[in-house]
């Protein structure tokens, strides 16, 4: 049996052109394969990231090249009440939404992990809030939070008679803050639930069987088997969730645009307002860059805070 007949297109091999041979040269092929991806990331990600940090130290505005002003932008931010407001709300938004998303998402994952009919259809339905464009579902929430025609107010006032007046969801600072957080939790539950469900399915049933033979209650099984086994995946999913919640933009921009009286500005929406809408590119960039320390801290905290358990339990069980 000759080599040429075993591979169907072996005939090509008898006259390999120089180009074909060049593509068979491994280092060349590696460079060719990596160029598109790395090129895109260098031009549209690494370079802008560096440029953003540079802009933060200049007084660039739209249409005018800025000059280096050192820490001036950041010194200004420290005296800016709106920036402090945005920091406060970004932290609150991330903290409360993360707790909400993860407790409800974990619960939903545990529920979906049960055996019942139409399971796969249900899983698909549950993912919908995550699939549909955020701005479009945010508009639905805007309408749900309408001061006059809110369906929630209607339920509370006309159906349940718990309240006598409509709730002004978006017109007053604290209700507005929590309305946005609720919408964010709603959007985040599916992703958390499906990711954690995937994690739950990797836990070997024999662990539960053994625990049950030892007479462990369902709470004990959750506390001493499910939770520790889920820690690594929780750490990853939570790190992601924190990064993307802290830097969220769409939901706030679509529903309140930072109002009322700037109480719901996140750092990202404030950066947009100053940088793009207001034309102060340098200052906007400084606000965007001021997110980085928070992100690094939150990432380290969530990742190492949760992953630590895993290390302590030792490499033996992995």
């Amino acid at each position: 049996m000759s080599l040429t007949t075993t591979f169907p297109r072996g005939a090509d091999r008898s006259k390999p052109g120089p180009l074909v041979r060049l593509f068979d040269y491994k280092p060349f092929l590696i460079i060719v394969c990596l160029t598109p991806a790395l090129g895109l990331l260098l031009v549209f990600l690494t370079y802008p990231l560096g440029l953003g940090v540079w802009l933060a130290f200049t007084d660039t505005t739209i249409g005018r090249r800025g000059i280096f002003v050192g820490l001036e932008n950041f010194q200004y931010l420290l005296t800016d009440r709106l920036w402090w407001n945005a920091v406060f709300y970004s932290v609150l938004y991330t903290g409360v939404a993360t707790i909400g998303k993860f407790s409800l998402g974990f619960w939903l994952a545990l529920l979906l992990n049960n055996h019942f009919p139409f399971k796969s259809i249900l899983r698909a339905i549950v993912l919908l809030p995550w699939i549909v464009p955020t701005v479009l579902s945010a508009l639905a929430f805007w309408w749900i939070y309408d001061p006059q025609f809110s369906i929630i107010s209607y339920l509370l006032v006309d159906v349940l008679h718990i309240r006598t007046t409509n709730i002004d969801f978006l017109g007053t600072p604290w209700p507005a803050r929590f309305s946005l957080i609720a919408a964010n939790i709603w959007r985040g539950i599916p992703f958390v639930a499906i990711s954690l469900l995937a994690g739950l399915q990797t836990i070997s049933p024999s662990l539960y069987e053994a625990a049950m033979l030892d007479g462990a209650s369902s709470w004990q099984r959750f506390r001493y088997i499910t939770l520790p086994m889920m820690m690594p995946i929780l750490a990853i999913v939570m790190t992601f969730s924190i990064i993307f919640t802290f830097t969220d933009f769409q939901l706030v921009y679509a529903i309140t645009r930072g109002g009322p009286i700037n109480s719901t500005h996140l750092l990202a929406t404030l950066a947009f307002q100053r940088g793009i809408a207001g034309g102060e590119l340098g200052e906007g960039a400084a606000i965007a860059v001021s997110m980085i320390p928070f992100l690094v801290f939150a990432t380290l905290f969530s990742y190492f805070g949760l992953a630590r358990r895993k290390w302590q339990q030792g490499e033996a069980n992995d």
Partner: protein
Amino acid sequence: MTDTEVLGRPAKAARGVNSASAAPDTMPWDTRARRTVLVYLPLACFVIILLFPFYWMALTAFKPNAELLDYKSHNPFWISSPTLAHIKHLLFNTAYPHWLMTTMLVAVGATFISLMSSTLAAYAIERLRFKGSPYVGLGIYLAYLVPPSILFIPLATVVVQLGLFDSPLSLILVYPTFLVPFCTWLLIGYFKSIPYELEECALVDGATRLQILRRITLPLAVPGLISAGIFSFTLSWNEFIYALAFIQSSANKTVPVAILTELVSGDVYQWGALMAGSLLGSLPVAIFYSLFVDYYVSSLTGAVKE
């Protein structure tokens, strides 16, 4: 699937043990009631809450204005005389069809570029294996953790410098920055699952590496390619901040941005048209996704299991 089936049974038995009676199967009614309260009831609440905004969106889109603003004489949870007026207004009196086309063009273009470059990158990192390949892989993946909110201001200046401001092409080129990292990561996982021996055999038989990629590795990675494609398409369709920052003229806007900036005007909101726009804008993604939901969930599951 099989995991949960196995897992389901002991869990059910355990409830029997915990309840007053000692034997698991002697009190089926009790077990069923517990199960209803502990599983079905909360599950039903979750489904209702997760789906309600969509129901409300759809309901509003087909409600005549008279019913929309009158909760006293009409049940707000139902429509007595559905109308297509809002959708007609949206399709014929606004640039909505044009926005849909732009969004589709951007999503398809960005998905195509992302799939091409991340397939090649994943192939090089996982299959060609060179000295620094794990680091290159990690580097590409870390790029996913850089949020668009930090990048949009400097990227706007880059886009202006390239002369692409206000052009959908800018979005097609910029979206891969958040699509390529995830797709590459997903595809590395897929390539890993394909036995290396298949490629070795072909190599011994004299196939070139490009032939191997085209005829062996890619066909086997099709499920991974599909889920990476769905992921890219939905994320491109969803993207907001870049589209808001880089596009100025009404004609070039994508659906999410256009609805928010073009349809919301003045103090009186056209809720019917707004919700119709949201509904129509959600449908392509929802349909596209429902066609491939199994690929999607399984690859997400697979990626997480890694």
